[in-house]
């Protein structure tokens, strides 16, 4: 249960007020419901007794009548408020969980980040946060609201009726209900996790089946793919059936428990009334309250049977590496220092790669072996060599996002490994082969590079990337891009990502095929523009194009 508690604690710390408002109103709804029924039962019974005794005229009808109306209308109003407050809290929780998830994922190892580009990985993560959406609304809220309502009802019943009756009703509901729900949670734990896993397997199977349709048909594998999809479907439905069985059984038990407690209250009330310990009207109050309090348990069974699914999802979401200290601090995110003092004690801003090798785990052949090179300030070096020779890997090593098995990468004469991430990013910029844009304005996309970006700087960077004309034609910096930067051509997206990288004004610029998708004249303009933008920077680029080689001072051949 630890991952779930962890997720709850996260929500509690961040959205305490919204959660508490929802809880308070939820308790109001349950409490007023019980009060309405209890008071009505008391009122009718007492009125009947007074009528029988001929004391109808002396009976104070005003206060109970007003109370009934108050509770009835108050409950309606509280219900409206509760629905709004809990939805608001849920939406806040949704956003909070997602922000936390992003922070964690952002700290994952580089290769894991690259894998996140796949649709399957993305839908898997979103399915996990979706599974956690019920954490507040279906689990934490009804649990807390039910417990508080029962505690309050216990006090009131003990005061108004009898301690033993109060213990019977509230204790019985809390303990019996707790046991039943606990059992349901346990019984549904494995199947509810399995149902989610089955659904995910089915989703992946369908993606594979659609994406590789031609391969599967031509190589006769479609029959097997259909069979596999059917098996995932069956597995997930069987697990769902088991969950449903547990949920309905829990519902049955809860109903019987509530009825048994109401019946016991009826018997106890009858006995106490017969002894004259309490009036029949007060005994009736207890019976009606017992009937109404059963509502505290109802909403919990859905949450209980989803426990397994939520726990698994929380375990995956929360298992992502803990974000570094600066981001977990409860304080509002302080902008990280934009320009830390230049490190390296004024050592020249040059990159030195010394005999590095890298072999991926379990691979028979190294991705890079024994590579050495130097890039001095103001120098442009192009890495050349056939596809797959390790150009991108070398850039990632230089950027400090991958670590070599042997040899070392030195920046300003210091190994990059121990240099703090913020310092490294302030000095070294890396444009990987595929870079992502986000929905929003062009300015918003550029502003990812730096806080407080002015329009003039943005235009200057667009100039350097030979993109000014395109952006002007689209309507300027405030023109909007669709999801993932949709609306720009491949070459335009590439240049916008380059402009964003340039805004970092790095001392070392690493570019992976920066002019991919551009025609030769544009490619030349871009390469000239970026050198003019960063006259002092060391530039290392991976290239397989003529224009990129021409722009380089030196070629370094790999493989």
């Amino acid at each position, binding site marked *: 249960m630890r991952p779930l508690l962890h997720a709850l604690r996260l929500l509690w710390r961040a959205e305490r007020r919204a959660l508490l408002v929802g809880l308070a109103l939820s308790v109001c709804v349950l409490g007023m419901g019980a009060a309405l*029924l209890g008071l*009505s039962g008391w009122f*009718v019974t007492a*009125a*009947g007794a007074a009528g029988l005794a001929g004391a109808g005229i002396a009976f104070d009808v005003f206060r109970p009548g007003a109370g*009934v109306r108050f509770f*009835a209308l108050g409950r*309606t109003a509280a219900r*409206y408020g509760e*629905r709004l407050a809990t*939805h*608001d809290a849920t*939406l806040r929780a949704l956003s909070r969980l*997602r922000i936390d998830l992003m922070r964690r994922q*952002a700290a*994952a190892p580089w290769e894991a980040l*690259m*894998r*996140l*580009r796949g*649709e399957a990985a*993305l*839908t898997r*993560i979103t399915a996990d*946060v*979706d599974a956690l959406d019920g954490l507040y609304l279906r689990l934490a809220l009804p649990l807390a609201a039910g417990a508080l309502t029962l505690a309050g009802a216990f006090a009131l019943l003990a005061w108004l009726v009898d301690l033993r009756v109060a213990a019977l009703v509230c204790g019985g509901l809390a303990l019996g209900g707790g046991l039943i729900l606990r059992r349901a949670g346990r019984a549904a734990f494995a199947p509810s996790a399995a149902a989610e896993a089955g*659904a995910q397997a089915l*989703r992946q199977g369908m*993606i*594979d089946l*659609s994406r590789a*349709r031609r391969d599967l*048909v031509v*190589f*006769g594998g479609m*029959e097997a793919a*259909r069979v596999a999809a*059917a098996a995932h*479907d069956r597995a997930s*439905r069987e697990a*769902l059936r088991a969950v*449903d069985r547990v949920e309905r059984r829990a*519902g049955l038990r809860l109903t019987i428990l509530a*009825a048994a407690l*109401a*019946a016991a209250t*009826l018997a106890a009330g*009858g006995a106490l009334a017969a002894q004259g310990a309490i009036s029949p009207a007060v005994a*009736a109050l207890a019976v009606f309250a017992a009937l109404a309090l059963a509502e505290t348990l109802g909403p919990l069974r859905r949450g209980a049977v989803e426990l397994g699914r939520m726990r698994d999802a929380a375990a995956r979401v929360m298992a992502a590496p803990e974000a570094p200290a600066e*981001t977990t601090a409860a304080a509002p995110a302080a*902008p990280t220092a934009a320009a830390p003092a230049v490190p390296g004690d004024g050592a020249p801003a040059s990159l030195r790669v010394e005999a590095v090798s890298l072999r*991926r785990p379990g*691979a*028979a*052949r190294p991705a890079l072996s024994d590579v050495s090179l130097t890039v001095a300030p103001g120098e442009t070096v192009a890495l050349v060599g056939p596809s*797959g020779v390790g150009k991108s890997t070398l850039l990632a090593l230089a950027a400090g996002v991958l670590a070599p098995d042997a040899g070392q990468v030195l920046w300003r004469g210091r190994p990059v490994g121990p240099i703090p991430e913020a310092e490294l990013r302030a000095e070294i910029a890396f444009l990987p082969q595929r870079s*992502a844009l*986000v929905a929003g304005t062009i300015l918003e996309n550029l502003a990812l590079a730096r806080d407080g970006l002015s329009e003039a700087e943005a235009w200057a960077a667009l100039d350097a990337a030979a993109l000014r004309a395109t952006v002007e034609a689209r309507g300027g910096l405030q023109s909007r891009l669709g999801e993932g930067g949709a609306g720009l051509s491949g070459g335009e997206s590439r240049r916008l*990502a380059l402009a964003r*990288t340039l805004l970092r004004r790095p001392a070392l610029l690493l570019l992976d095929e920066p002019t991919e998708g551009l025609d030769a004249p544009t490619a030349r303009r871009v390469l000239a523009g970026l050198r003019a933008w960063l006259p002092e920077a060391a530039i290392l680029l991976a290239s397989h194009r003529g224009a990129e080689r021409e722009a380089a001072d030196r070629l370094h051949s790999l493989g």
Partner: protein
Amino acid sequence: MSRFRRPPPSPAARRLAAIEAPAAPLLRRSARLTAAAALLWPVQAGAIAWAISGWVEGGAPLSDTLACALVFLLAAVLRAALDHRAGALAFEGGDRVLAAERARLVEAESLRGEAAAGTDAPGQGASSAGAAAMAAQKLPMLVPYLARYRPAALRAVVGPVAILAAAAPISWAAALILLAAGPLIPVFMALIGVAAARASRRQLAEISDLNGLLMERLAALPDIRLLDARERMARDFAARSDGLRARTMAVLKVAFLSSTVLEFFSALGIAMAAVYVGFSLLGTLGFGAWGAPLTIFEGLFLLLLAPEFFQPLRDFAAAWHDRASALAVAEEIEAAEAAEPARILGRGAPAAPLPGPATIRLAGVVARGRALPDVEIAPGRSLAVTGPSGAGKSTLLAALAGLLPVERGRIEVAGRRLDAETADPWRARLAWIPQAPHFPDAPLRAVLDPRGTGDLTEALRAAEAEGVVAALPQGLDARLGETGAGVSGGEARRLMVARALASRADVLLADEPTADLDAATAAAVIRGLRRLAERGTTVIVATHDPALIAAMGAELRLAPRTAPEPAEAGG
């Protein structure tokens, strides 16, 4: 129940009715049990009222109370058991519908032919995500509709009527109070229907917008890390999701009002019933009962009936969004089927290879609205299919593999007509190199040798792809994931050549196998194709690449698209 249905059924509603047809017998049985359960509450209410009135009137022995408690409990157990059984039947119905719809979806998706002209692999992204979401996320929404909404809809009719029937013989005034809300309820239901639909749409939209934002940010995480923009991203996400939340809450504030109106009337009804009964018992009110004044038993009985009059209506309102979601799913299914995509020939199952020399002959073929040239390709020939974009190169390859039906004319393979019967046996002799390889979630070994027949070591060597595999973590046991992450585009293409070599196919179809490759890698791919041809395989490539055209020996140039005589264009 018909009372609450929108009278003119939309196509989505008709579709939904058709979808739930297989569950109809189960749902009917479930409905009968649900209705029977609803009739038990008056018995329970009577037992409690009887016991309490006994205390007030005095003189009743404790055994009466115990007997009442027992009756109450037994009725409650019976009612719970009936509801339990009814729920099981309804779930069973939902499960049956889900199984049937998923099976249909898998069947349709797996047999879908090539999409409309000009959409190659990249265009399939949307549809594959769509089918996956439909199977894993949307179709399951039919289950709560059948298991929750349908019983709730029935109870919303049977429940109030049963309560009225029990209340009216005792007091016409109490029945009137309940009824006062009664005729208004269809109005509320309509209001709630509209408002709840809007609320649930807005909420679903909010979650999907939020997930869209999230997925986009996750996909951009490598950039965000490199730009040191984690905090900027978190602040930006928080600001955007706050905006979304504010807009959603504005809609919900209005949407929840209408269900609050129902709550309001139900609360008012209960309070008025309690006050009326109280005053009657005090003797202040002398009307409403039939003749004799209200007894305490009758008063309590009425009081206990009142909430149960409204409860089913509230349950129904709460379950309304289940119907809204189910209708949305039905609408999507309806739209997908109305599009009637073309189907492949055969079923893509393993088959014994078609016997005879692998001669290919086209005569008067029109596919996807394009006329294809009449040609005969002898076994072992190498042929480059060229022509401007949109001339039908991909269509020709797809037609030869039976991936789309031809609208006119005849394709002959190994002396037989290519049709539903011969397609699978013909494909047992084919290999295929797609332009954008997709790597399923399986070990590379299985991906490269799908028929389990080849010698991978030799094939990898011939395709010059040994090095590619050697650099992978776990080598041939590596799982590359969907986009081939872990290998470059050129490496992926060489792996596909190795697959073709390993398959020992008689005919290879390759779609632009050298597009977007650097010269050295393209040359390696071409050498691999040549080795295949030297073994006697018929190699047919669609290409623009002059080096590849030169290596093939023969060229079939397709003319730019000319409108053929009108044929019923398939998709």
